[in-house]
């Protein structure tokens, strides 16, 4: 009785999260997130801090005129805006392609939608519809 829910994760909740956590599918999802988000976070923070340090300690370089009254400081400042937009777009593209399908597959399995025949077909065959469907169901619940 006590061990039954854990021994049979496909049908009953709560799911056995430790088993899911150690599954290869989950490991793939985690590494797809971490290997993208962690280095990128480090990179943009270093790029930002580099810019801050240049502003503090490289006054002459930052004051170099580029065009008219525009100097290097402004160009680098605007570049910070540009890279922010770019990284946001890049991450979202990565998430849609690499994270969402994996997350939805695991979620569907855990929430038992895989037990009913149409769900896995939809999730595997038409991933674009899958997420919307889940979102609506969840919103209605």
């Amino acid at each position, binding site marked *: 009785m006590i061990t039954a829910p854990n021994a049979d994760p496909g049908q009953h909740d*709560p*799911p056995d*999260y*430790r088993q*899911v*956590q150690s599954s290869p599918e*989950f490991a793939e*999802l*985690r590494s797809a*997130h*971490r290997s993208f*988000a962690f280095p*990128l*976070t480090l990179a*943009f*923070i270093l790029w*930002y*801090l580099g*810019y*801050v*340090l240049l*502003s*503090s*300690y490289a*006054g002459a370089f*930052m*004051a170099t005129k580029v*065009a*008219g*009254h*525009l*100097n290097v*400081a*402004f160009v680098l*400042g*605007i570049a*910070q*805006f540009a890279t*922010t*937009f770019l*990284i*946001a*777009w890049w*991450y*979202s593209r990565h*998430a849609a392609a690499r*994270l*969402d399908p994996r*997350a*939805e597959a*695991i*979620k569907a399995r*855990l*929430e038992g939608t895989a037990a009913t025949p149409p769900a896995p077909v939809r999730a595997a065959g038409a991933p674009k519809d899958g*997420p919307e469907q*889940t*979102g609506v169901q*969840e*919103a209605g619940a």
Partner: protein
Amino acid sequence: MNLTQHLAAGGAGEHRTLIVTLFAVFVAATLGLTVWAGRQTKGADDFYAGGRQFSGFQNGLAISGDYMSAASFLGIAGAIALFGYDGFLYSIGFLVAWLVALLLVAEPLRNSGRFTMGDVLAYRMRQRPVRTAAGTSTIVVSIFYLLAQMAGAGALVTLLLGITSEAGKILVVVLVGIVMILYVTIGGMKGTTWVQMVKAVLLIAGTLLITFLVAWRFHFNLSALLGAAAENSGKGSAFLEPGLKYGATATSKIDFISLGLALVLGTAGLPHILIRFYTVPTAKAARKSVNWAIGIIGVFYLMTLALGFGAAALLKPATITASNKAGNTAAPLLAQEIGGGAGSTGGAILLAVISAVAFATILAVVAGLTLASSSSFAHDLYVNVLRKGRATEKEEVGAARWATVGIGAIAIVLGVFARSLNVAGLVALAFAVAASANLPTLLYSLFWKRFTTQGALWSIYGGLLSSVLLVLFSPVVSGKETSMFPGADFAVFPLENPGLISIPLGFLLGWLGSLLSREAPDAAKYAELEVRSLTGTGAH
């Protein structure tokens, strides 16, 4: 001419009427919205999370409305107008910071939390101590931030309504406080979200208008605008280079690095921003809302260039500082100037419009802050700590409404004392506290399996205490003409922003507290949090 005196002398009676009318229209319209939203607010999901039915775009707009505070609009414009390029550095930090929220925080938080930041911080931990810590730091950060908004309101009122008597200023701060309490108690998160969306549209429209008029004046030539600003500021090309505000001494240079660190790491630890992610149905919608917010906020901050350098180019530096020492009224003054100058009808109308927008900005942001702190008070402290999780939904929402009134009252009292501080500087302090106390615990909780209750407590309290104490003994509070208490001098810590010390300390204490913990980390709970936060399984 001193505009405040000019207005006070009665030459602008009709302008004042116009400002008050526009503002009254905004308050009436948003209160109407709030009452409408309040009718649909039934349970805790509605009050705390607006029913979780907002779309990514709507929430992106509301996040922008919540984030583009008086600090951005008045503080940054003022800082650029007085210090040139160094003021612009604020905008960059405020924007880049959103990437931390996007890449690491927004989606897992939406997936695993319910109403507050404390939900995620306490997920794997012993509930009562960690909830207490999370609730405390939420309320402290929000009050710092509220202080900044109230300071902005005080400065605006002095300028716009010509109210110079202390009693008059206090009355206006009280009125702002009462309206914000009404928004939150009646409309909850749903009402607050709509107010923030309306405000975001108004703020963007107002800023676009001024930006366009400034650009028109300088024939859409950024270089010409910068040149005129440099010349008019009396500081020459130094005005366009880093260093005027932060480059003076070795200390101020370090202060600037401290500020930069606080700005970039603070956003993802601000409770009033984090709870906005609960208003959308899924993590994907949360991601979409951050993307919209980054777009809207980015464009807005680019326009602060036109506002700040426009003010520097078209107004005398003495005019700006005479109106408000910290520069907080540079944007409305610029609006008046670009509309035709003091005394002209165009100038009066633009001044009124921009002032009403600025008031709207303050109201919407204070509502969001009050909601964040009263949510945390009711959900984290009252229900989960005092009542040990045994309170009905009705009692919980009731407690949140009463907390709103209490926190509103505290904000009003503090607002009266904070009028002469630069608003952007004050907000930077709130960011430092958020980055030191909240972000380390949030990141460790989500991504580090060996994190323990003791680690969470050390990190939250260590980050919180160190940042608040360092501020207390900094030139922000005493020892300088612009300090909160200029008469006293107990500023033993030289930096205005504590981030450089307190943020690494928060991270270090979280790590050390976990390693030295006698209690083993809860592996089962971590598995649950990790799976839920990445997949959205069981999300509320």
